[in-house]
Each structure stands twice: as structure tokens, then as C-alpha cells.
């Protein structure tokens, strides 16, 4: 094996030891910026993953069948679907594991003194838990038993009526649920509040009222009607758009062939606004983190610049030995790259450990922000998400950026006249 490259690499690594304090400070700057950036990316990835999971698990499923005039940005729930038009055989597509109907409806809730607008969710609980994750969601109290009439309210609704969840769970709390039929007739039921739920999904938590599907249909005088049918697919990752779109297309074709006036939406289409908010957050936090990276890169440039000044005479000696100016430049670039690589690995180890820890333990947002809502579909505890590809990309990025940072000092040194360099003090 040719020795020149190995020799250059060895010299670059050893040069870290020439001025240990300076190297340590530069490595710390690179390491901390990489660790901070990885932690930040870990939280953003965690935020994205949790948000997407919450959206899918609480409301969007993977595919949703809705009436043709459905607008996910401003749903009005005027048109409804006849649930019998969508038998299981129609929805039995490859990859689809379950389907559940929901009847969403604008509603009012009153305690006799005050009344507030809410969003009603009529649920077929038995089928609903096949698609959604209400059964795995923190609930104080309980859901209704089969045939029981009662409601479960979002945490925000409980707060609006100053209801203590524990006393709700103990029973004896009643609210009046008001809904309006398609013909314009109002219906109202006095119903026991059976539980208070916190899903992490803002529409349910802030203003959701969950009720048995038959009860909701009775309230709206809409027997056999639902506002949507949601489908769950097996092993669809958040980035798996191809499979999702293929299933959407296939289902749409089936519905058309059956002569049904209905549209199929994917969760991505439904979640467009949330995903846009997430993207804005991602970009803004990345920009903030870039400043840390820039500071670290300036540290590398400074370190190489000082090293190049200090070693002018050595550069003269290397030129006398026959090292080309480009080889001198590469030597300093390697040294910059080594600072980035070692700093990146230290930062990767620190950041990686922190992210792995916070992936297990999470960060309690309530403790950090109090009761301020973040307008994102996440629960109280945010879990970081470890991504090896991010970690490797950041170490590679730190190496490359540090080599680039070393370019100007390296080029300046490489251009020195050998005799002038040897004469340097």
C-alpha cells in the first residue's frame, strides 16, 4: 500500500496533539454544535413522528372515505354517507386491516348555565378501536358500555365547564349535548359525562365530545348515516406514499364502479396543514442550529489559521523535502477535516446518547411550557427520535465543513515561497 496517504492521515491526526488546549477547545466547539444539532434534529424527528402517529391514530387513519364536498380545512359535515353502502367486501383491499365509521357533527354543550360550541364524534366503539387508538389514550373515567348512553369529553371541554376529571370519573356529572339535523331541527340530550380524555390531538382535546354512534345518529335524526369511514392499513410508514396512493386509487375506482358519490383522501392530504406547520418549525429550528455550526466552523478555520502561522518554518522544511504546494494545502485540509471528524464523533456520541435517553424518557412539555398549547398534535411528553442516518450525515457534514473552513488558511500557507517560509521566525 502506498505510504503517502497513510502518512498524511497519520500526520493530520497527530497534529491534534501539537497544541492540546487549542485542539480541545476547537473539538469542544465542533462536538457541542454537532451534539446540539443532533439533539434538535432528534426532537424535530420525534415531534414529526409523534404528530403523525397522533393524527393517524386519533382522527385521520390511513385512508378516509368522505362525501364529495368534504373540505378538510373547513369541514362542515353537511353531507353524510349511508354506512350500509360501504359493506366490508367493498373495503376489503390488499393491506387494509380495518374500517370504522364516525359521525362528526357541530354541536353545543351546556351545563344549564353556560353553553359552548363543540365537535361531536359519534363512534362505533367496537370498530373504532380497530382503526384508532382511543383505547390506548389516557382517559380519566371510562367509555360507555354497549347500549349505554353517555359521553366522554375532551380535557379542554372539562376545563371550560370547570369540571374536575376525578369527580367526572366518580359519576353524577351531566351535560346537555345539542345537535342539529339535516332538516334544521335541533335535538338535545341530557347525558352523563363518563370520562375526560387527553389524546394529544387538539380538535378532540379542546372541543371534542365523544358519544355512541347510535346516540349521535338519533340526535341528528340521521339513522344509518355517518360523516366518514376511515381505513387502517398494515405497516404503512409515514414516508410510504406510494402504497398509500395506490390503495387510494384502487378504492376510488371501486367506489366509482359501485356508483357511490364519495371521495378517498389519504392522511397526508388531510394533514397538509399540520405537516406545513411542522415543516416551518423544522426549517426555523434548523436555521437557529446552523449558527452553532457556523461558530464551530469558524473555530476550525481559526485553529488551522493559527497552526499554519505557527508552522511556517515547518512548511518551509516540507517544501525543501520536496512536498508540493498542493500537498501542503491538502495536509492542512486533512487537519481541518480531522478536527471536524473527531469533533463530530465526540458530538455524535454525546448527542446520540442524549437522544437515545430522551427517546426512552422523553421531555415533559407541561413541565417546560406549563399549560400553553403548542398547536401541534403531540401529548404532554415529547420523545426524541434517534436516526442513525442523521448522525452519520452530521459527522460527515462536520468533517466536510471543517475541511472547507481550513481551505483559505491552507491555501495561503501552501502558496508561501519555500525560502521565505524557512526564514520565518
Amino acid at each position: 500500500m502506498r505510504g503517502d496517504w497513510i502518512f498524511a492521515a497519520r500526520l493530520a491526526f497527530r497534529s491534534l496533539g501539537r497544541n492540546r488546549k487549542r485542539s480541545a477547545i476547537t473539538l469542544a466547539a465542533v462536538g457541542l454544535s454537532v451534539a446540539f444539532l443532533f439533539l434538535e434534529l432528534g426532537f424535530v424527528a420525534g415531534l414529526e413522528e409523534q404528530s403523525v402517529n397522533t393524527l393517524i391514530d386519533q382522527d385521520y387513519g390511513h385512508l378516509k372515505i368522505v362525501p364529495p364536498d368534504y373540505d378538510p380545512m373547513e369541514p362542515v359535515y353537511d353531507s353524510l354517507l349511508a354506512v350500509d353502502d360501504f359493506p366490508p367486501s367493498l373495503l376489503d383491499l390488499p393491506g387494509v386491516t380495518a374500517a370504522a365509521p364516525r359521525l362528526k357533527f357541530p354541536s353545543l354543550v351546556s351545563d344549564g348555565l353556560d353553553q359552548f360550541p363543540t365537535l361531536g364524534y359519534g363512534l362505533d366503539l367496537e370498530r373504532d378501536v380497530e382503526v384508532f387508538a382511543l383505547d390506548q389514550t389516557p382517559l380519566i373515567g371510562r367509555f360507555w358500555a354497549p347500549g349505554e348512553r353517555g359521553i366522554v369529553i375532551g380535557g379542554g371541554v372539562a376545563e371550560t365547564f370547570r369540571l374536575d376529571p376525578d369527580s367526572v370519573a366518580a359519576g353524577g356529572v351531566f351535560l346537555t349535548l345539542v345537535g342539529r339535523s339535516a332538516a334544521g331541527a335541533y335535538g338535545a340530550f341530557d347525558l352523563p359525562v363518563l370520562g375526560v380524555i387527553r389524546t394529544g390531538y387538539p380538535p378532540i382535546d379542546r372541543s371534542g365530545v365523544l358519544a355512541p354512534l347510535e346516540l349521535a345518529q338519533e340526535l341528528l335524526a340521521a339513522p344509518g348515516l355517518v360523516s366518514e369511514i376511515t381505513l387502517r392499513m398494515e405497516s404503512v410508514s409515514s414516508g410510504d406514499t406510494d402504497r398509500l396512493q395506490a390503495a387510494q386509487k384502487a378504492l376510488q375506482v371501486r367506489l366509482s364502479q359501485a356508483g357511490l358519490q364519495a371521495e378517498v383522501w389519504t392522511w397526508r392530504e388531510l394533514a397538509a396543514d399540520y405537516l406545513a406547520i411542522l415543516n416551518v418549525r423544522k426549517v426555523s429550528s434548523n436555521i437557529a442550529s446552523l449558527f452553532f455550526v457556523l461558530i464551530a466552523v469558524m473555530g476550525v478555520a481559526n485553529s488551522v489559521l493559527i497552526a499554519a502561522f505557527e508552522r511556517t518554518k515547518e512548511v518551509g522544511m516540507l517544501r525543501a523535502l520536496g512536498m508540493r504546494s498542493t500537498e501542503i494545502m491538502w495536509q492542512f485540509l486533512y487537519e481541518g477535516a480531522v478536527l471536524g471528524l473527531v469533533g463530530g464523533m465526540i458530538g455524535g456520541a454525546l448527542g446520540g446518547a442524549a437522544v437515545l435517553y430522551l427517546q426512552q424518557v422523553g421531555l415533559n412539555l407541561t413541565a417546560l411550557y406549563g399549560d400553553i398549547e403548542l398547536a401541534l398534535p403531540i401529548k404532554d411528553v415529547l420523545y426524541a427520535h434517534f436516526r442513525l442516518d442523521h448522525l452519520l450525515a452530521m459527522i460527515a457534514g462536520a468533517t466536510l465543513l471543517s475541511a472547507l473552513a481550513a481551505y483559505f488558511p491552507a491555501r495561503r500557507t501552501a502558496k508561501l515561497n519555500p525560502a521565505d517560509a524557512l526564514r520565518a521566525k
Partner: protein
Amino acid sequence: MPLVELRDVYKTFQNGVAPVPAVQGVSLALERGEFAALAGPSGSGKTTVLNLIGGLDRPTEGRLFFDGRDISELPETERTQLRRRRIGFIFQTFSLIPVLSSVENVELSLALLGFTTTDMRRMSLEILEHVGLKGLENRRPAQLSGGQQQRVAIARALVKDPEIVLADEPTANLDHDTGAEILDLMADLNRTQGTTFLFSTHDPKVMERARRLILLDDGRVVSDRTVPSRGEGT
């Protein structure tokens, strides 16, 4: 054909706006196998002449030949090649790389020539043994005495088997006895391997060891004579 020949060479440096002549019309020829000293007081132009011969600097005027080839106007890349393959340098301050061991400092010369790691190690260990540093191969410069460091520098210059070694005040940073040992070593290598040595000095005791003494003063050759008696450095 002489190995090195200078024909009426001038070198002038620019100090601000004032030109400073360092070498003024030097002509000399150096044959293969010579063991010659460039002597003279500080500022007499010794280092500049060595730098010109080594292709580290270009003459302002005059011609400079290496092995019959005019190198006065040679492009930088070709002068680098010349230094890399055919010329060895030894410096007053040893100029070893502090973070490399003795053997690695020697290997540096070979790394530039594209040797394999195995060959580099073998050849470097051999030359270190030859200059009397067996057992000290893995020590870093800071763990060596001045004389030992200069021996490493000699090994680094010689390992690539150059045609000429240019040594700029190689004993100036050493005590008398150590300096004498270094000169003995250089003379021995000159005698046994036939390597041409040209070294600068302003120390009369060192001048006595050369077989040829070229005296410089104010950038001019004022005397150039062969020293027949003690020239073998014994």
C-alpha cells in the same frame, strides 16, 4: 560535468523599497563526492547560496546548473521534483516534526516518493541504525538530545539516497563535542556512500573538517581552496 555549477549568480532581496544584495556574482562548481564547506560571517550569503542550489529560491541574475541542466528558470513543480528525489536538506534547528517519532520523521522523505509503508519502515530503520540511533526509533524529537535530533535529520536527508546533501549550519545548535560527532558522521557517509555534502558554517573548527573550503563575504566568493590534510573528518 560538475554536479552543481553557479555561473555569475546574483540574488537580491527587496527590503521595502530598498534592494538588498545577498549574493553578488558567485561562480563555483561542485563535483560529485565532494565534502565542502561554505564559510563566512553571518549575512555573507551562505544560506542564500544553499537555497539557490537547492532550488528553494531563484537567482535574480546568472545561471545555475544541476547535473548539467539549467535550473535557474525551472518551474516550481520541476524544482520540487528535483528536491524530492535528488537533494537532501539538513537544517540548523533540525526541523523535525514534533508529533512524529524518529522513524516516522525519516519515513516522511520516502512517503513523498510513493514508497509502500513496508518499504518505508524497513529503509528508515536501516538508516537510523546506520546513524547510530538503533533503539531510539520510536522516540519523538522532544525525547531526544540535540545531537540525536540532528542524526534523525541526517537520516531523513539520506534515506532517499540523494545526490547532494545541503546542510545549513548543521552544528550551530550543538555543543562542540556533539557537533564534532555530527561532522564525523557526515564525513563517514560521504566517504562510504559517496554522497556529496555542502554545508555552511561560521565556526572555524568546523571549517577545518571540510576537504574544500569556500569562503564568502558580503555575497562574494573571496576564497575557494582544497584542504588536503584533515579533510576526511577523521
